[in-house]
């Protein structure tokens, strides 16, 4: 399929010329459709940045580094996004701590352990997990998990907080709506994504390498460590980064269970907030500088997810080329 436009028909008949015109028209139309992606991405960048500039001007670099967010203070309010940026990363990392081992395990189960019928059922279940809307997870999180969690959190948190140096991480108060609850809910949402990518790269492990390992007397686990993991490392990292990007951008579930606090410490059971959740919770009542600052949070989130996704695409792309 060459990209050069077809040469214009010179001595062709009228009918032929008509169809050539239709051909060129269709080509142009489809190319324009492809270009909308470029246009929309450009417009997103331009239009949200434009609306956020008043807030950036007002706060300067403090918009990123200050942890004080007080929309009703002073004439125009004070807007520092640091606690939300911190919260976004912290919650996403908690989500990955749960989701990555689970996803790798499920992917290994599907590719190495399960008989074909179970494999199909498991794939279906992961699709089901991916299809559940995030607001439903949020509803479950806020009306079931967040209510039952505090007792459980205290039971595991208070002995662990007695370990020297761990008092902050595991210390109270033990909130049902907290970083940990939000991280757990997000983990459920990114698990299908990471699983499907790791499963795909595991499946590209050459059969010969796996059989060679087994023939040399390796146990199944040694075969996985010696043949499957080294082959899939780049793809797995890419998949994890894609999951991270998704977790950072996930809004609704986090908005319901993260607790809307302003915590900047590594404290699992504290109420915190993430960028997307703060936008969702405050946008309805925001006006003027406040609204501009919330759109500014959107710009920061947009930039962060783009960076993470670029890294993921680069790594997955390289892995794909090496794998095939």
């Amino acid at each position: 399929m060459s990209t050069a436009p077809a040469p214009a028909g010179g001595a062709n008949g009228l009918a032929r010329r008509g169809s050539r015109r239709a051909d060129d028209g269709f080509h142009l139309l489809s190319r324009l459709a492809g270009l909308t992606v470029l246009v929309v991405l450009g417009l997103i960048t331009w239009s949200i940045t434009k609306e956020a500039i008043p807030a950036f001007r007002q706060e300067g670099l403090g918009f990123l580094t200050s942890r004080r967010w007080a929309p009703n203070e002073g004439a125009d309010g004070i807007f520092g996004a640091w606690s939300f940026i911190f919260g976004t990363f912290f919650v996403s990392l908690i989500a990955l701590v749960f989701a990555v081992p689970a996803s790798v395990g499920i992917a290994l189960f599907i590719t190495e352990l399960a008989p074909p019928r179970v494999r199909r059922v498991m794939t279906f279940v992961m699709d089901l997990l991916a299809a559940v809307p995030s607001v439903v997870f949020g509803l479950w999180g806020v009306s079931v998990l967040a209510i039952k969690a505090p007792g459980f959190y205290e039971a595991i948190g208070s002995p662990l907080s007695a370990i020297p140096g761990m008092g902050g991480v595991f210390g109270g108060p033990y909130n049902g709506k907290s970083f940990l609850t939000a991280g757990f809910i997000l983990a459920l949402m990114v698990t299908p994504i990471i699983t499907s990518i790791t499963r795909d790269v595991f499946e590209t492990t050459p059969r010969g390498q796996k059989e060679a390992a087994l023939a040399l007397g390796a146990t199944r686990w040694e075969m996985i460590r010696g043949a499957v993991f080294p082959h899939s490392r780049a793809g797995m990292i890419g998949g994890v980064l894609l999951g991270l990007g998704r977790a950072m951008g996930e809004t609704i579930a986090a908005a319901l269970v993260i607790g809307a606090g302003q915590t900047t410490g590594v404290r699992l059971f504290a109420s915190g907030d993430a960028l997307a959740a703060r936008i969702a919770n405050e946008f309805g009542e925001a006006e003027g500088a406040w609204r501009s600052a919330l759109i500014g949070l959107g710009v920061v989130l947009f930039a962060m997810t783009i960076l993470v996704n670029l890294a993921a695409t680069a790594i997955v792309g390289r892995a794909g080329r090496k794998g095939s």
Partner: protein
Amino acid sequence: MAATASAHSTKRRSITRSSISGGRRVRNSLATMLIYVAVAFALLPLAFVLYYVVSEGLGVVDIGFLTSELPAQVRRATGGIGPAIVGTLVITGFATLLAVPLGILGAVYLNEYGGTSPLAGLVRFLSNVMAGVPSIVMGLFIFTIYVIPRSTGEKSAISGKAGGLALACLMLPIVIRATEAMLRLVPGELREAAYALGTSKSRTIVTVVLPAALPGITSGALLAVARAAGETAPLLFTIGTARQFNWTLGGPNTALSAQIFSNAQTGFPAALDRAWGAALTLIVLVLLLSTVARIVAARFTVR
């Protein structure tokens, strides 16, 4: 590579199965066990969530609930979610009409015309990037580019149409990627056969390539629709709120996902009941769409 590594390590390891040391055997069983734990980790919460949605939802959902207007006060256990169902259908339908044809055409460009050209590479790359843009950013985007400029004085541009635009932005990259993958599966011989008969390229694409890939494209589009129907974040600042049925794209509207979110936020028992009912309705809708998508894909896959 792994094979040679293992070969070197035979100095340390015996190669006969009978002499597998206890430690190695234990480690193997332990790893197998951990894999099962991982599977349970995903299955248990999913089972819990579905159990709650079905058991709490079934107690709420009946014909009256599905067809009544929303209550004037969320605290009250009256009314239903009829307008939200209508809103979800209208808004998602509009988004589908925008995103699916555009996405299919874009994928046609990528696979049939662009191929490996730099421009096609760029578009392909950017649609990956766009697929990763958080859905709430799509909502902010439509708010800043559509709602703000078009709102004048008393009249706000917040409407089902704005929500549909935001959802369409979300769906576009999904449709493009799914369609391109399906077009790639159409064998080149089909195209060549059509060319050999003197068919023009555009006609070949419309009458041969697209029909051959149609089942796959349909299932990809349905998955995108299912994803969009479940989204809340892009609708938060674009559709406003409505209590009555609104079958049009103009004016404020509401949606199932938005109702679940706002009811869950209030925490009143009656509101939570309504949220569970709406959640059951939404899940049934989404699962119906994705199951149809999977059946279509499995039944008619191009081989």
